[in-house]
């Protein structure tokens, strides 16, 4: 009996990898695998590697693409490739997300998110205006960067941005976020928490993928039956947690952020896209987002939820080409 117990302990102790080892649960990040394309930037006093890809001719006008929350650049490659015909598209996994190096809590604020864009602009477009497209959270950050740096932005597109002010979010929160204690997806996520120890970021990221898939946000797609895939590499679990803290908590602090303070200084027309099925769709964007801009055009993408670029790619591309000056 003792021998069996001894063999058992030896087997498990020495033959097992740890769940936090690289590549066990989620893909390696750029600091863990040098074969992944990366760029070093310094934000919040920290040198961090971000996973960055470019599409198109480097001599073309520069277009920065900002992804949303609970996702990374992978989900937007179709748009980047589509726009690379006329633009030099630069897209990266925002710090802490996707294949970019993980960050600590102190490195994530709205100000640092803007610094991140500035750092990358210094590398790719130091002396020219850029076009920015932002989706969801990325739409909010794109608006904030434009508000703070109106003379550095040529064109701005926001695809279903999150509510641009805390006041808007307060009104819309119940409409956007769906949570039920009796939801099977949530229960499974809680149960996974009993199976895997969140001892490191990899487990947190792995678990956060369940939120991405099961959607505690309403209406990612028009139909939940066979929705198009939303492929990602990694959800930055800790970043999502910090992001929630920075934006505010409906139960305690409320929402105090403001993405559009100063956006009046941006004179160029802004394109706002909203899906017909999304809880952040056309109606919401028309009522809440459009009035924040001096000169905005809003377009409804028919038969599309929040993930409009995978659900109605052709329609989104058509509207982008109608707006973008290079076409």
């Amino acid at each position, binding site marked *: 009996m003792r021998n069996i117990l001894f063999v058992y302990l030896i087997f*498990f102790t020495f*033959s*097992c990898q*740890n*769940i*936090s*080892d690289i*590549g*066990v*649960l*989620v*893909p*390696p990040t750029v600091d863990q*695998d040098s*074969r*992944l*394309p990366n760029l070093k930037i310094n934000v919040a006093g920290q040198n961090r590697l971000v996973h960055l*890809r470019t599409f198109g001719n480097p001599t073309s006008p520069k277009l920065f693409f900002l992804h949303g929350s609970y996702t990374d650049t*992978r989900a937007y490659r179709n748009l980047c490739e589509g726009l690379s015909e006329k633009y030099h598209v630069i897209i990266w996994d925002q710090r802490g997300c996707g*294949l970019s190096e993980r960050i600590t809590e102190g490195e994530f604020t709205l100000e640092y998110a803007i610094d991140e864009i500035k750092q990358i602009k210094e590398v790719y477009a130091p002396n020219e205006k850029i076009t920015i497209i932002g989706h969801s959270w990325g739409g909010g950050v794109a608006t904030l960067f434009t508000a703070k740096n109106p003379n550095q932005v040529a064109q701005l597109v926001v695809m279903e941005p999150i509510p641009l002010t805390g006041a808007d979010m307060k009104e819309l929160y119940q409409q956007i976020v769906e*949570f039920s*204690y*009796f*939801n*099977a*997806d*949530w*229960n*499974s*996520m*809680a*149960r*996974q*928490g*009993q*199976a*895997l*120890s*969140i*001892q*490191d970021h990899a*487990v*947190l990221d*792995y*678990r*956060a*993928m*369940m939120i991405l*898939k099961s959607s*505690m946000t309403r209406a990612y797609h028009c139909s939940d039956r066979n929705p198009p*895939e939303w*492929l990602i*590499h*990694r959800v930055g*679990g*800790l970043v999502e*947690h910090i992001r929630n*803290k920075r934006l505010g908590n*409906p*139960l305690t602090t409320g929402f105090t952020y403001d993405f559009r303070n100063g956006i009046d200084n941006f004179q160029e027309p802004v394109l706002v896209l909203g899906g017909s099925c999304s809880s952040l769709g056309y109606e919401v964007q028309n009522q809440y987002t459009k009035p924040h801009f001096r000169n905005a055009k809003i377009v409804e993408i028919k038969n599309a939820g929040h993930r409009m670029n995978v659900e109605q790619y052709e329609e989104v591309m058509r509207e982008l080409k109608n707006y973008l000056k290079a076409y």
Partner: protein
Amino acid sequence: MKTAIFIFSLSFLALISQAQNHFGLLQNARQTAQVQFTANPALSMGFDYLMRVEKVKIKGKPIGIGASLAFPLFSQSQLDIDVSLGASYLAEIKNNWHILSRLKYGFYHTEDINGRFFNHGLRLDLYPMYRKKTWAFAGHLALDYRPFVHITHKEYAKKAFQDLYPNNDGNYAMPQSGWFSQNLLFVNYGIAITYTKEKWNVNFTIDYARSLAKLGNVFMPDIGIIPFSANLGIGYRLAK
């Protein structure tokens, strides 16, 4: 047929061996069964059996041995199951003060869109309690340690590894399945209350559940949930 025999045997083993129905020791009964509802915070339902073993006594008090089966009430997969075997002991301290303890070994299986997970480990529960004829009020401390987990990743997790390298020139092609070590240690502390009659008992435990893992239950406060664990059990005497 073999599968049916296996499942039957497993259920039988669970039902005859004992119960996590350790509160059954408060009853004057040789065998008790219990149905329990648990939120930890995932919602589940369980069935317990406790048998008092008169031949094995510590300081004149018999121990109880038992088993438990639990299933989630809401789940992405209906293949989730927990099985545990254990022993319970009620020690008299002084006057109306007692300590109810339980040591169990559990096997836990869960499945979701990411993968299938199987782990096992030891759990110790201690209930220092003040006990009157029918009522008992107790504090609760539990340690739950599961150092190893077997993971079988599903397509959803595997797809995250696809299209990783610009020229498909890299080492990581998919997540790794198999046995892994981890530091899954939960500490629960809270209170319990029981009401015991001759043939039945009701018990309720509510705990704050703290994971000693590095990042703990990070997401729960974001959605307004304090990491908690609650258990309501209703036990019935099967044999005196």
